[in-house]
């Protein structure tokens, strides 16, 4: 069989066909660019966000290697390093901890890096200076220098109190290098020289795992990568079996959870897919429309090509080649603009989502490539899918049909048409009816952007700043620790002196303190509450894997006890009972709340307690006191410890009662109300206290949250606005394209109508009516789809957010209608002018 090489001629033909079609080329390329911008911006935000989370986690963990062996010996390192599955193995020698007085707020590790790669893998490679070489050299993070109040200067002396498995010694090192410390990291690293490590932490001779009383000094931490991050746990356990088999002492392994914790939850994934689909739909609608119109316009050409022997396959190939050519121009342009746009949007998204290290890592070239490739593929797929159907039409056309083909063919099913009076409007209606498909596509495309805009508006409109803030903060200012931790740290750190200081600031109206205490088994159950608790135990004990409910069988509960300044309870919203500040301040009353976490929002069976019940609280040193339940009410989140156990009760009593039971006089949290005119001054004054060196508390003001909220809103507006803006652009482009081509393709028809006496004005009126039809259909569709989407999506999904109040609105659509009407009235008459230049005779002559 002879092989015919006709690819070249087809390609040449495809190219020639494109040349004269300037306007259409511009339209197609523009729509591909827009589609590509959307895809690129989206994938770049998505990709960078995932990468950002991962980077952030790695910095928290303090390493970028996928897995590691803990507390091993040099021979283990050699073993691991030589394994074929393992890459980039690094090690560090554990020396000890720095326990200087100044390091109250950070934890500082003293280690010896195996090499540069080891330091780099932990984001701890000095960018000024180098790793230590001499015995008394040290390299530290800037955070360590900050805590020691030392300048960033090489050669200075760094005092370190070293704790090697309990042996404390004082040292003076010379700074040989430093790097920018990560605040998010769990521990700060200090590198010492090998010589120093040898002296204070000599390499042990026996396995760490054989020791009864393990000491860490001198053991190696080995971290490494695999070829890819798929199933790291599985790979690691296989590695351990391979290396150690049945050995007596098998080292512990660590998996870097930056790789394992999934940062994508299902909602995010669905959201992403929906957005991709919307973009795809928008791109499809316009690209399909343009190709379809173009092919209809060129159908005679295709017929001609067929009569002279071009096969269907070749014609199809030709259209495909054209699509590819458009993509070749449009996609790179779209990628460039999309990446730039993505960068701008990303900054806002990242800072809003609190990815702290955002400033310290830049978008990597590799990730950018992946983003571009994905966006390019998505766009290319959209183009190819869009031109699939038009392609079929071109392919299947029969030569004779093509010569007679009329884009605006009237279905022959319709035998007769009822006579009606002719006006520009009635002709317009007829015209709309004969191009139903095109009308549908254009209307859909316009609807898409309108609906998206409406959805976005409903979303933003529903966000409730007051709800957001009131959930975050009670009162004007809150002084408390940033995070409480169950690690033996003292919860109550605000001294009576601090309270004194606070209450003397000018402009302060109210200073309410919250004291906290927790004792095991401090709440005795009896009577009705006990009955309820027992019933509850019977219902849920079967599911109680960890014995969280066992305390009920011993007739007690563990409970958080809050002592509060009575005025603070004015802000509470009880589920049962009423808040009476005066009664409460006389003592002997408690506000209680019990919750079993697995039940979510529903507190079990009207709470264990109800108004009028008596609770008996055990205090310190055998003290105890009975309280009458005044109301069932949860402690507002801001004032609570913000920590939960599976089954918990919170008991709120007045501060005087609290002082009777407990000896601690320090407060956990302080709520402050001030005169609005003094906010700035009060803010400064409080900060003077919270920013002082020994302070463990921070200031949260209403303003901080308002700012946080404003950032959040800005992000949604920016990202959503850009998205719906581009979609609107696509919609309008599609509309313009449809109108212009419909006018050009009916050039002769219009000439004929003016030959028999239709004036330009009447023609324009007709075209305007056609445009108005688009506007009206779009409005109707938008209203219907917009309503549906508003109820289902916005109310359903955003309604889950605690600070969202759903208000149904179609206002944005109604605002868009006049604009749409104006556009639809103006564009046709402008387009009509373009064909008026030709004389009727010339237009009549055209086929």
């Amino acid at each position, binding site marked *: 069989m002879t092989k015919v090489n006709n690819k070249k001629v087809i390609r040449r033909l495809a190219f020639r066909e494109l040349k004269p079609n300037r306007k259409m080329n511009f339209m197609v390329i523009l729509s591909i660019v827009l589609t590509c911008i959307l895809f690129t911006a989206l994938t770049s935000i998505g990709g960078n966000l995932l990468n950002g989370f991962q980077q952030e986690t790695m910095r928290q963990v303090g390493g970028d290697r996928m897995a590691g062996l803990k507390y091993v010996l040099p021979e283990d390192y050699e073993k691991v390093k030589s394994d074929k599955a393992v890459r980039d193995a690094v090690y560090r020698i554990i020396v000890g901890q720095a326990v200087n007085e100044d390091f109250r707020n950070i934890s500082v590790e003293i280690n010896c890096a195996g090499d540069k790669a080891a330091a780099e893998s932990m984001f701890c490679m000095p960018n000024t200076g180098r790793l230590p070489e001499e015995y008394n050299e040290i390299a530290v993070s800037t955070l360590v220098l900050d805590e020691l109040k030392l300048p960033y200067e090489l050669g200075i002396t760094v005092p370190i109190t070293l704790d090697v498995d309990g042996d404390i010694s004082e040292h003076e090192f010379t700074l040989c290098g430093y790097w920018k410390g990560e605040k998010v990291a769990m521990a700060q690293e200090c590198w010492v020289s090998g010589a120093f490590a040898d002296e204070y932490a000599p390499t042990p001779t026996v396995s760490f795992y054989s020791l009864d009383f393990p000491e860490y000094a001198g053991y190696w931490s080995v971290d490494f990568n695999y070829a890819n991050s798929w199933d790291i746990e599985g790979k690691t356990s296989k590695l351990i079996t391979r290396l150690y088999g049945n050995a007596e002492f098998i080292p512990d392994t660590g998996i870097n959870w930056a790789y394992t914790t999934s940062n994508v939850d299902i909602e995010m994934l669905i959201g992403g897919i929906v957005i991709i689909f919307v973009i795809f739909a928008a791109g499809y609608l316009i690209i399909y429309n343009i190709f379809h119109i173009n092919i209809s316009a060129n159908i005679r050409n295709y017929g001609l090509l067929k009569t002279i022997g071009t096969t269907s396959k070749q014609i199809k190939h030709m259209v495909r080649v054209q699509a590819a050519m458009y993509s070749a121009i449009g996609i790179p342009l779209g990628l460039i603009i999309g990446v730039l746009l993505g960068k701008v949007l990303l900054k806002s998204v990242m800072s809003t989502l609190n990815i702290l290290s955002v400033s310290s890592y830049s978008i990597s070239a590799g990730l950018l490539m992946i983003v571009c490739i994905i966006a390019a593929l998505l766009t290319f797929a959209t183009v190819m899918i869009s031109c699939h159907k038009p392609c079929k039409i071109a392919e299947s056309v029969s030569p004779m049909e093509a010569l007679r083909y009329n884009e605006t063919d009237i279905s022959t099913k319709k035998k007769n048409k009822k006579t*009606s009076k002719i006006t520009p409007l009635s002709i317009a209606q*007829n015209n709309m009816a004969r191009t139903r498909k095109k009308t549908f596509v254009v209307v859909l495309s316009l609807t898409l952007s309108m609906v998206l805009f409406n959805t976005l508006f409903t979303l933003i409109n529903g966000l409730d700043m007051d709800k957001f803030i009131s959930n975050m903060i009670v009162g004007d200012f809150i002084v408390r620790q940033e995070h409480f931790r169950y690690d033996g740290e003292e919860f109550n750190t605000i001294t009576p002196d601090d309270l004194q200081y606070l209450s003397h600031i000018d402009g302060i109206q109210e200073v309410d303190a919250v004291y906290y205490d927790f004792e095991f088994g401090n709440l005795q159950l009896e009577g009705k509450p006990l009955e309820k608790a027992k019933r509850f135990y019977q219902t849920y004990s079967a599911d109680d894997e960890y014995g969280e409910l066992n305390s009920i069988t011993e007739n007690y509960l563990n409970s958080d006890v809050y002592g509060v300044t009575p005025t603070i309870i004015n802000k509470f919203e009880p589920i049962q009972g009423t808040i009476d500040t005066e009664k409460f301040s006389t003592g002997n009353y408690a506000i209680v709340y019990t919750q079993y976490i697995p039940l979510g929002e529903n507190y079990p069976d009207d709470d264990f307690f109800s108004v009028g019940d008596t609770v008996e609280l055990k205090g310190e040193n055998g003290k105890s006191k009975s309280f009458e339940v005044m109301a069932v009410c949860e402690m507002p989140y801001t004032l609570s410890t913000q920590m939960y156990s599976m089954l918990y009760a919170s008991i709120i009593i007045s501060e005087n009662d609290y002082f009777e039971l407990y000896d601690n006089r320090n407060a956990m949290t302080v709520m402050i109300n001030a005169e609005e005119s003094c906010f700035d001054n009060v803010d400064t004054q409080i900060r003077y206290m919270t920013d002082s060196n020994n302070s463990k508390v921070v200031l949260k003001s209403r303003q901080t949250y308002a700012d946080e909220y404003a950032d959040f809103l800005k992000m949604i507006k920016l990202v959503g606005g850009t998205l719906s803006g581009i979609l609107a652009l696509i919609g309008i482009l599609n509309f313009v394209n449809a109108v212009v081509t419909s006018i050009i393709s009916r050039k002769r028809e219009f000439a004929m109508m003016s030959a*028999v*006496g239709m*004036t330009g004005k009447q023609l324009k009126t007709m075209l305007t009516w056609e445009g108005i039809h688009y506007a009206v259909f779009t409005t109707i569709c938008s209203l219907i789809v917009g309503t549906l989407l508003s109820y289902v999506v916005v109310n359903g999904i955003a309604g889950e957010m605690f600070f969202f109040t759903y208000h149904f609105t179609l206002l944005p659509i109604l605002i868009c209608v006049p604009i749409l009407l104006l556009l639809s009235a103006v564009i046709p008459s402008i387009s009509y002018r373009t064909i008026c230049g030709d004389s009727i005779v010339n237009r009549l002559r055209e086929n």
Partner: protein
Amino acid sequence: MTVLKTENLTKIYGSGDNKVTALNNANLSVEQGEFAAIVGTSGSGKSTLLHMLGGLDRPTSGKVLVKNKDIFSLKDEALTIFRRRKIGFVFQSFNLVPTLNVYENIVFPIQLDGNDVDEKFVGEVIHSLGLEDMKNRLPNQLSGGQQQRVAIARALATKPAIILADEPTGNLDSKTSQDVLSLLKVTGQKFSQTIVMITHNEAIAQMADRIIRIEDGKIIKGGEPND
């Protein structure tokens, strides 16, 4: 009475080396109720002449007088309105509006004018052209001959001063051509309508009252009624 008159009508296309004189000082006049045929070979300027007569194209110089009115003194919009009131067109390619049915096509120019349709007159026209049975059909369901009869009915319906027919039988077979032309002639006489037709077909031309010959843009014979 002279319904249509041209004075030194000249049309030049292009300029410089590409200058083509399509029409060179053409003078002709047509009387009320006359059926005149303009004949000439292709490229002789007959179509150009017809387009000028109908006000579809503007001349380089000279005048066209319809009922003693210089039509090119009118602006475009006014000219269009004049055209739909005073001139009926019959085109070679029928030129019916595809979305309108037969009846709607016939009354299209009247309704564009915003006038009420003279039902009796239009009914008569439809009857004489034998279109009663297809009043509600769409153009694409008609044969070529039928479509041209609709076009003739449309031209007659406005009771114009002149009907201009541009190769009305050009797309029809000879049998249908004869039928359509007979109808054109008969109805023209019946409604005492002035008709100017262009054709390159001598046999068709013979059916006219007068034959105007045109060659290289010049009228060489039959420009005046008594030529």
